[in-house]
């Protein structure tokens, strides 16, 4: 993984010193809260319902075991012994004290971590595929470009006060988008060059997003030669910085500008701007590409036979706990003899994405023992051990089980994405986490869970959509109805290559009914699907909403 040199380290250290100075000036009253707010936000400090929250960047989700141990230590020293992994591959601490934050950040800087630009109206942490570098369907390792983008966007002097926040995602797998690039402000897709001998480049998508106005990104440029990546991003950001709306924060995201101008006019503006800078100093050099790429070279894999048949046999093991775990949480690795292991942070009855300090330390230890000391945070709020020798899977499963980290539900309906909701967030209208835990409790039968197959279920506690409910196969949105928590049910969303925004099934339901309604939807699918090969999303797309409405609301003219 990327290792800081003295420049990177100096910048992060100086950032800590700068923020320490800013906090002391805030505490002395030299700067007002209004002046301080963007400063603290761009250092990851949010004001939540009960206290400050700190969001620490995990660039493109990649961690070393030492970094994960530091995240655990920080949670013990400055917080309450746990952290929350977010949908943008970051980690959040819910209870730090403002005056402790500089020391906390200084501790993080010792392991090359920071909280720079994890919130505020600036370019946020660049996210990517959690299987980057190890997936079989990958064309290019996206992390190299993510790191190059991270450096370009870090403390960029021109783009620190954009109309609104700005999120970039990169995928290196042209046929398997696991980074949800089509619901980002900019989506970068590595694609093959036009000719067989041409180097890869990028398709650039723009204007996707969720929130109040969900929108699928459109193509801004079909093919961008890779050496021009940064100048093209700069051109998009400059057009947005100059022309994005600033009169209404709900209309300030780039998707509104793209929608207002139309993608043709928008991309013409970008192309005109880019034409003036593309051949300048921002062109990526081969030397820089090679320097960064060297840090993402494969670890020293042993030369092994394929383990595919071995893993398939484990999935059928008489030890059903192991079998289910392997069937749902283990993914084929590009390297023969190795597996990718997903660690679910969605254990029954636990808030999605939370991990205790003990759990983080165990995962760090297991990464050292079985996986070259690397861990990845997935945007689905799970952890990944990307490089496990397949023969260790039974041992690994046993060790994970001991700390409630072996829930066999990756990609299943209980692998729920949820925002913090009304329990923590002062924007929320309704609670999210209790709904998630009640749904997990409801689906007790693991055979039934696995029979349901791959279904994503996403919950947001308000229309800001931090739980990405629009792109869940099943989406749940908390709303406030005369002071009571109600929930809207949506079906048909997807964040991948076939990205779509879910549609509302019918009238919102009270908290007491929403969990049964989800069970009803699942039963309707099971009873009516063509075969077990027809995924939930495919069934919804084929059959439409009528079967669900009939079962749930009793008639199909209810809405």
């Amino acid at each position, binding site marked *: 993984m990327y290792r800081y040199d003295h420049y990177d380290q100096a910048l992060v250290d100086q950032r800590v010193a*700068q923020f320490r*100075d800013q906090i002391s000036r805030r505490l002395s009253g*030299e700067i007002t809260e209004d002046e301080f707010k963007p400063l603290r936000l761009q250092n990851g400090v949010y004001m939540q319902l009960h206290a400050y929250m700190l969001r620490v960047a995990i660039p493109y989700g990649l961690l070393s075991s030492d970094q994960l141990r530091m995240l655990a230590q920080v949670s013990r020293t400055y917080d309450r012994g746990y952290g929350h992994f977010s949908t943008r591959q970051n980690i959040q601490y819910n209870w730090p004290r403002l005056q402790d934050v500089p020391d906390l950040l200084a501790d993080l800087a010792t392991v090359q971590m920071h909280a720079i630009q994890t919130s505020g*109206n600036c370019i946020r942490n660049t996210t990517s595929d959690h299987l980057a570098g190890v997936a079989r369907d990958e064309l290019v390792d996206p992390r190299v470009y993510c790191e190059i983008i991270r450096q*370009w966007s870090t*403390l960029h002097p021109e783009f620190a006060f954009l109309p609104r926040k700005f999120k970039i995602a990169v995928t290196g797998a042209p046929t398997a988008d696991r980074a949800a690039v089509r619901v980002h402000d900019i989506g970068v897709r590595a694609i093959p060059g036009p000719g067989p001998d041409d180097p890869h480049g990028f398709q650039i998508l723009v204007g996707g997003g969720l929130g109040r106005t969900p929108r699928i990104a459109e193509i801004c440029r079909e093919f961008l030669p890779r050496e021009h990546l940064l100048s093209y991003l700069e051109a998009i950001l400059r057009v947005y*910085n100059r022309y994005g709306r600033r009169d209404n924060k709900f209309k300030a995201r780039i998707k509104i500008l793209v929608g207002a101008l139309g993608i043709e006019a928008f991309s013409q503006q970008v192309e005109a701007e880019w034409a*003036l800078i593309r051949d300048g100093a921002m062109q990526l050099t081969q030397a*820089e590409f090679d320097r960064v790429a060297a840090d993402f070279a494969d670890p020293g894999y042993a030369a092994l036979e394929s383990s595919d048949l071995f893993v398939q046999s484990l999935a059928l093991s008489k030890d059903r706990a192991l079998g289910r775990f392997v069937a749902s949480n283990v993914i084929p690795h590009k390297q023969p003899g190795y597996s990718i292991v997903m660690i679910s942070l969605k254990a029954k009855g636990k808030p999605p994405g939370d991990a205790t300090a003990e759990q983080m330390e165990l995962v760090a230890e297991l990464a050292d023992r079985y996986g070259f000391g690397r861990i990845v945070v997935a945007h689905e709020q799970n952890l990944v051990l990307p490089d496990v020798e397949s023969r260790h899977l039974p041992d690994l499963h046993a060790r994970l089980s001991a700390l409630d980290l072996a829930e066999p539900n990756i990609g299943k309906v209980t692998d729920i994405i949820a925002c913090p909701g009304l329990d923590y967030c002062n924007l929320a209208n309704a609670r999210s986490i209790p709904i998630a835990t009640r749904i997990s409790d409801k689906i007790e039968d693991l055979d039934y869970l696995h029979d349901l197959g791959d279904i994503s279920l996403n919950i947001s506690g308000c229309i800001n959509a931090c739980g990405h409910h629009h792109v869940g196969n099943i989406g749940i949105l908390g709303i406030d109805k005369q002071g009571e928590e109600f929930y809207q049910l949506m079906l048909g969303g997807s964040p991948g290559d076939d990205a779509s925004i879910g549609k509302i099934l019918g009238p919102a339901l009270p908290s007491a009914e929403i969990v049964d309604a989800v069970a009803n939807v699942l039963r309707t699918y099971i009873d009516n699907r063509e075969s077990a090969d027809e995924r939930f999303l495919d069934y919804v797309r084929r059959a439409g909403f009528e079967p669900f409405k009939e079962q749930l609301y009793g008639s199909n003219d209810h809405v």
Partner: protein
Amino acid sequence: MVPTTMSETPELHPGARRIVRVGASGKPEIAIDHWQRLGDDDPFPSLDALPVLVTLARAERDRQALEQRTGAWGVWVPGNADPEQIAERLRDRVLVAIEVTKFTDGRHYSLARLLRDRYGFTGELRAFGDVLPDQLSYMQRCGYSSFELAPGKSLETGLRCLTAFSVSYQGNTTDPRPLYRRRA
């Protein structure tokens, strides 16, 4: 009239103020400044040698009077101005001042950068308005060379903020090379 470096804290002349300015050496300093910013209907200062800043509209209207004064004249523009529309008329001025109406409105950063990098403005580029110490470093890297801080803001803090970082990933107006072309 060129602002002079301040050695102590003398009494200021009426109409003068202290600003933060990046000297020719690239080192930021506190300087005394006499530029008078005028609205379109404000009279010229009675002291003919005082330099003035006017809007582009007034520069056009009162061009002759401006040229006849002994004091220098420059132009002030709003932070959301289009450089494409105005750059030609700013090019020969010794000083252009950009108004920051609200520090969270980042359009002026693009304006400053384009005036410098694309349209070759080489005079003094000043920020005034809602100019806070914590943004000076970003402003300087976008091409600003002097800063009239918002009322009540500490110039010493401003100086300190300008030297908070020894490294930046991006290029700037004086050296457009990103760090990856400078790394050693």
